[in-house]
């Protein structure tokens, strides 16, 4: 957890990302459809628009098959979109209207592949020097720049090795160095850390942020790991079958998900179905459920009285307390099933009327006995109401 703290400080140190001058990347209405062998059409990228400022770190988050890789490959020019425009650092590189479609070597960006894609027949130094060499950087500069970036990536001593002789984590650092060496201002990451183990992953995340603060590039980072997304992102785009469900800062994504899909994909949830009884001011609602009336907050637009909805609460937003005889609002007596010690918190599986089994997190300093009689309460501002299925 110490890394998380330093990352946050680091992020504040990065140059300001106010929508100033030219954005690093502008994607407008990009669409890419695949036709499967059996003829079914897959809209892998479905009219996505996205604007990324200089130095901004945007994470594309979504389940497998939602089109993250396809979008990234469209930006890199490795895939031809069907329509839309793609502008990198103010230069239009794809536009169906203007019939512009440049090849990847003209797009001036760095990319890190899931499989590292290091060239096995070249030494580490040659791998990293390659982007400089092909862009005609003078020989005298190449060596210095390569050594600098290798040092930054913490692998200076590996310069004369072949990729086959490196560990997975080291290979990933080489790939990182290669993508950053020509410093193009925009770097694409396609699940770069999914092949390394948890410990190395955490370390590398930290170093990616460190390098970003030192070099100052904008990043589009694909992952389906929400912890990774939370740690790295300035903004997260949650994708759902080719569309952006929500694009916002990590806190907002977590605390105010735009729909049930996002709420369930990012972080754990407890859910209960009900019917809207009354609407109040500022999105306050009362929902009638099997667990009684719940005071809650509207999570999305277009919900009216009488609609069937679901109420969602995150495990750590529930408060554990002694059961009060009267039975307050948004409070339910629970039966403790099991508790788990998770290090920084405890998790409990509880049973409450109407909710069924629910998961609740509370500080690890407190403890509860299985079988004890307790209650949990969910403050109205953390009980968010969504349409049962968003799409």
């Amino acid at each position, binding site marked *: 957890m110490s890394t998380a703290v330093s990352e946050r400080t680091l992020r504040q140190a990065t140059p300001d990302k106010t929508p100033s001058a030219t954005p690093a990347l502008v994607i407008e209405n990009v*669409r*890419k*459809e*695949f*036709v*499967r*062998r059996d003829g079914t*059409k897959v*809209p892998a990228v479905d009219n996505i628009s996205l604007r990324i400022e200089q130095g901004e770190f945007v994470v594309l988050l979504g389940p497998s098959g939602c089109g993250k890789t396809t979008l990234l490959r469209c930006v*890199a*020019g*490795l895939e031809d979109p*069907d*329509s839309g425009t793609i502008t990198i650092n103010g230069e239009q590189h794809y536009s*169906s*209207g203007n*019939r512009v*479609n*440049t*090849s*990847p*070597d003209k*797009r*001036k*960006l*760095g*990319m890190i*592949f*899931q*499989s590292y*894609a*290091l*060239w*096995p*027949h070249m030494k580490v130094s040659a791998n990293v020097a*390659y*982007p400089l060499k*092909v*862009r005609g950087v003078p020989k005298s500069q190449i060596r210095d720049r390569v050594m600098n970036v290798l040092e930054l990536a913490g692998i200076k001593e590996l310069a004369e090795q*072949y990729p*086959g*002789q490196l560990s997975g984590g080291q290979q990933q650092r080489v790939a990182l160095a*290669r993508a950053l060496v*020509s410093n193009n201002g925009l770097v694409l990451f396609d699940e770069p850390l999914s092949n390394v183990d948890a410990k190395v992953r955490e370390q590398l995340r930290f170093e990616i942020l460190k390098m970003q603060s030192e070099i100052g590039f904008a990043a589009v980072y694909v992952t389906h790991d929400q912890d990774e997304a939370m740690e790295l992102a300035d903004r997260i785009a949650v994708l759902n079958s080719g569309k952006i469900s929500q694009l916002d800062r990590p806190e907002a994504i977590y605390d105010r998900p735009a729909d049930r899909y996002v709420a369930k994909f990012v972080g754990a949830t407890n859910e209960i179905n009900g019917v809207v009884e009354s609407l109040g001011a500022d999105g306050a609602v009362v929902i009638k459920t099997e667990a009684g009336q719940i005071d809650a907050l509207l999570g999305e637009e277009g919900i009216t009285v009488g609609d069937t909805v679901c109420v969602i609460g995150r495990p750590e937003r529930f408060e554990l307390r002694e059961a009060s005889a009267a039975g307050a609002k948004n409070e339910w007596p629970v039966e403790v099933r099991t508790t788990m010690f998770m290090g920084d918190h405890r998790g409990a599986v509880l049973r409450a009327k109407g909710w069924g089994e629910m998961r609740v997190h509370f500080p690890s300093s407190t403890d509860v006995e299985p079988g004890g009689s307790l209650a949990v309460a969910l403050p109205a501002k953390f009980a968010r109401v969504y349409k049962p299925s968003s799409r």
Partner: protein
Amino acid sequence: MTTTDTKAETDTEAPGGLDDIDAELAMAVVASPWARVVARARRGGWFSVLSVVLGLVFAILVIYPLVRVLIQAFFGDGTFDFSIASEVLNYPGLGQMLLNTVILVASSMVLALFFGALFAWLMERTDARIGRLAALMPMLPMLMPAIAGAIGWVFLLAPQAGFINAIIRAVLDFFGVHLTSGPLDIYSWTGLIALYTAYQIPFAFLMITTGLRNSDASMEEASRISGASLRHTLMRITIPVLRPSLGAAALYMVWFGFSFYSVPVVLGTQMNVKVLPVEIVRLLTFTYPSNTKVAVGLSIFLIIAIGTAWYFQGRILRSNRHSSIGGKGQRNSITRLGKWRRPAQALLVLYFALTFVFPLIAQILVALNGYWTTAIKWSALDITRLWSGITANSQASSAFGTSTLLALIGATIGMTVAAIFALYLREHRSRISRVLDGVIKLPAALSAIVIGLGFVLAFAGPPFNLGNTLVILLLCYLVLFLPQATIAADAAAAQVDRQLSEASWVSGAGNARTFARINIPLMIPGLVAGWGLLFVWMTGELNASVMLAGTQTPVVGYYILQTFQFGGFATLASLALGLTVLNIVVLSIAHFIEKRTTARGI
């Protein structure tokens, strides 16, 4: 990877959701697949354009001669008529010739299947395995081309001057039996069938070995454990499981046998046994004026035979799609042959000796001696004569030089083109590129005789007037062997992860540089191996060479045949030997480079 597979499909189809692009663009990009290919190619830079152009050029080089053959066959003199048909059907000795061909192909097929399967089983499933020989066996026809082998066997078994006959006679003499010729005769049906069989066995061996590796040995173990005898297991389990590979091998042999030229031309001519491919070449090349009409007409029989073989081949493969069983192909059940082990190994060694060592010794003896006789003066043997047959004869040396040069150029161009095209095909699987790929691979399904014939019709005369030039030979070799080259290059390309070239592309390198700096170095082991095979095939090429080569463009195969007909045996032995040595050297070097580059961790 399934993703690349599905990708193959997607790029072909016009993408959906076009309604929201302006119609003009939709027209330009999708309406005509050509426009799409061109647009794509332009985006990929000149290198993609080059790839497409190369593909087109070679597709034309394949199609145009074939079209000429068909036109000639059906519209011989400008109008559609059946005169060719009647001329061909009334061709004297047609029935006998077809019968000869069928008998030779069928009998050698059965024998080769038997021995090929036996050898494969011995090598794969029993303790009689001889590792080195197992690797060498499929290579035998490449180490010593059939024409050299056939001549070697003539040296050994000709009734009067054959070395083996002389030795047998000497032994019989000792026992008081006096013979002046024989007792064995290579110029006989037995000799013909034996040599056909010898050159078919490696194919059967290769395919059945593959079949054995892909089938699960535990079925045999189960049978043995349940008490079945070795013979019973073989008949009831092993052979039925192998039926698909046996079938594939059989049909491959039909393809090979019907256009096999070297052995029948060496033996059959002397015996007055006519076979189809030899007759086609004779009518076209060794008859004056050449009888192109009938040659083309006869080639239709060839096409029909081979077409039928491919048809059944396809059906067998389809119907047995699910019968390749098991997976890993570990060599886990080694049958112990006990007292049969040594005899079995002796049999394997004997085959190797008969097809390689003996003919090689015969060639060396004749060359060393300076002329072909059974009365070898051992003291007068001269080592320099080994090569002087080539060096002292200006025609022989120029034939040797020409072939080597052609093979060097041809193999290099062929492998380069194949590598470029294989990579292009991997990145851009449009319908058109796949059609091009199919067309380029088509010659593998046809006979070299037909291709050579087509080249004579298409390019020898006006407007190209390439007859008697090295260019026509080079083009024909390229067309003939590009299928094998692309198969080798495809395999090499498949070894290289697509993301490796994508990473280079994103790094700012164009297609050409990515090809030169990333793809080629990574594909080198496979490309070198393919280059070696191409080289060997090109130096040993006979069928098309005989039709296309002339006195100004002598190539080894052509010159060996000529020399054989006029009887310069020392030169012949030198040439056969030289060819064999060249092949062994080139294949060894290729193998060495392949090993070394692979070992570098690529």
